[in-house]
């Protein structure tokens, strides 16, 4: 379970970019974070995996064994241990281009093996077999021997998901995982991420309310560093206007709403 309490971050110029962000995500939940640009979504995500230290507040991750750790309080060495339990899917895939698809997937468990073994031996055959199984889940096992540089955006994101699956995390974070993809690939990726939330909490930042409405179990909307909505993923027109502001409202004066679920 992930428990975020009262996250606050103030920039040196005095601007409060995170203002008391609090929410809980349980196993079985796929939470989509929405909000306009600069609202604080990405900052919140950076706090969740320890890339950014908030001025106050806590991010407590509790795994299946009941072991809890506050990501905001722990030191570097302990943070590395906690990160082994947090899978991250990035917007830009973040794969090693010259390495094969299989090697990229196995990298997911790099934090869990000793530095000595990883430097001088690498991964075992058993780990490779498990990595192929992770690739089977995203239907990429037929390309496991090829280098990732020749893959399409959708294929690269599927490899990144396989990497997260192979990592066996206690929490999965997805930072705008479908922003670079066409609608059909975006659907494929969302269909792959959704079942993962049956076993672990999944939190993702999105810019597509129609996607979060269809695939997420809950939506949190952030605006000006504050949570302004936390609940059902299907948002009404008024709620969308409240989240994205008058610009969206003005757009809707001229065209039929395509984002909102009536």
């Amino acid at each position, binding site marked *: 379970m992930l428990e975020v309490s009262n996250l606050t971050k103030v920039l040196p110029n005095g601007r409060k970019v995170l203002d008391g962000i609090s929410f809980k995500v349980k196993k079985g939940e796929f939470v989509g974070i929405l909000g306009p640009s600069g609202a604080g979504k990405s900052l919140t995500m950076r706090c969740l*995996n320890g890339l950014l230290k908030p001025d106050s507040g806590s991010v407590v991750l509790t795994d299946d064994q009941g072991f809890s750790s506050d990501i905001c309080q722990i030191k570097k060495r302990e943070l*590395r*241990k*906690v*990160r*082994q339990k*947090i*899978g*991250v899917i*990035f917007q*830009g*895939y*973040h*794969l*090693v*281009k*010259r*390495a094969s698809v299989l*090697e990229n997937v196995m*990298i*997911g*468990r*790099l*934090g*869990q093996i000793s*530095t000595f073994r*990883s*430097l001088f031996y690498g991964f075992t055959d058993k780990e490779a077999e498990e990595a192929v199984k992770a690739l089977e889940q995203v239907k990429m096992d037929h390309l496991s021997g090829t280098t990732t540089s020749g893959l399409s955006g959708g294929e690269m994101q599927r490899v*990144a998901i396989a*990497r997260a699956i192979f*990592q066996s995390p206690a929490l999965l974070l997805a930072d705008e995982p479908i922003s670079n993809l066409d609608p059909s690939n975006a659907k494929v990726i969302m269909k792959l991420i959704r079942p993962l939330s049956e076993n672990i909490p999944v939190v993702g930042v999105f810019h597509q309310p129609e996607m979060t409405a269809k695939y997420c179990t809950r939506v949190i909307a952030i605006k000006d560093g504050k949570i302004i909505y936390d609940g059902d993923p299907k948002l009404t027109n008024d709620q969308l206007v409240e989240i994205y502001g008058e610009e969206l409202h003005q757009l809707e004066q001229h065209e039929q709403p395509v984002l909102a679920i009536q």
Partner: protein
Amino acid sequence: MNEQLILPSAKYKHKVGYLGISLFVVVAVCIYLKYNPFLIFADFTPIQRLLGEMLPPNFSVLWQPTIGKAIAQTGSAAFLATFYGCLIAFVLAFLTAANTMPLRFIRLLVGGFLSLLRIVPPLVCILIFIIAVGLGAFSGMLALIVITVGMFGRLFTDIIENTEHSAADAIYSVGASRLQVIRYAILPQIIPSFIANCLYAFDVNIRVAISLGIFGGGGIGYALYMAMQVLHYQDAFALICLIIIMILLIEKTSDYFRTMILGKEKLR
């Protein structure tokens, strides 16, 4: 604040202006130094006389066992200097690159050491080693190692710093250590460039080894120097032909392998 927009016509005027100033400086310097830039085309007599004494080349000198030994000396000095030089440069580059060495103090120290190696001119370097270990191929090799470390240490640092950071971020995000990030994110990206640059280093080192040989570094360069000293110009010309063929062969072989590793578009 936005920068002021410069129109194409204004840019053209700037270019013409800079060209005019450059020409004026060149002419002014020539006048001040009383140097006639056309002098080089005026008198070919010394070159004609030298060529007359060099032709026809005495190729029989190439069959002497000392020449074979000299080629082997130059080749092995260049090879060993490339091997040790690139290896040392490779290790030092990781200590200088900002994305692999977090301690600024170490980065500055090692970076400063590499700069120092680059500052020492090759001829000064060979003179130092001749004084230290005596005349011959060994001092030539030591000088070449210093030159290689200085030159390729900086190059390898740039290659490491220009690797994609996104792969490293992903590996850090799974809880990996810095060494693991170097092994799994940085090494796969830099190894092809490293091998290609080692081949290029060998290519460069062969030429430098010949030049250093003339100044006491031994090998084929020294054989050429001795032939010129005793006024055996026909022997010297045969050696020059041999050196040209040797360099061409090594350059083409090195280019072939570098193209294989990096792909044609990245060559040079």
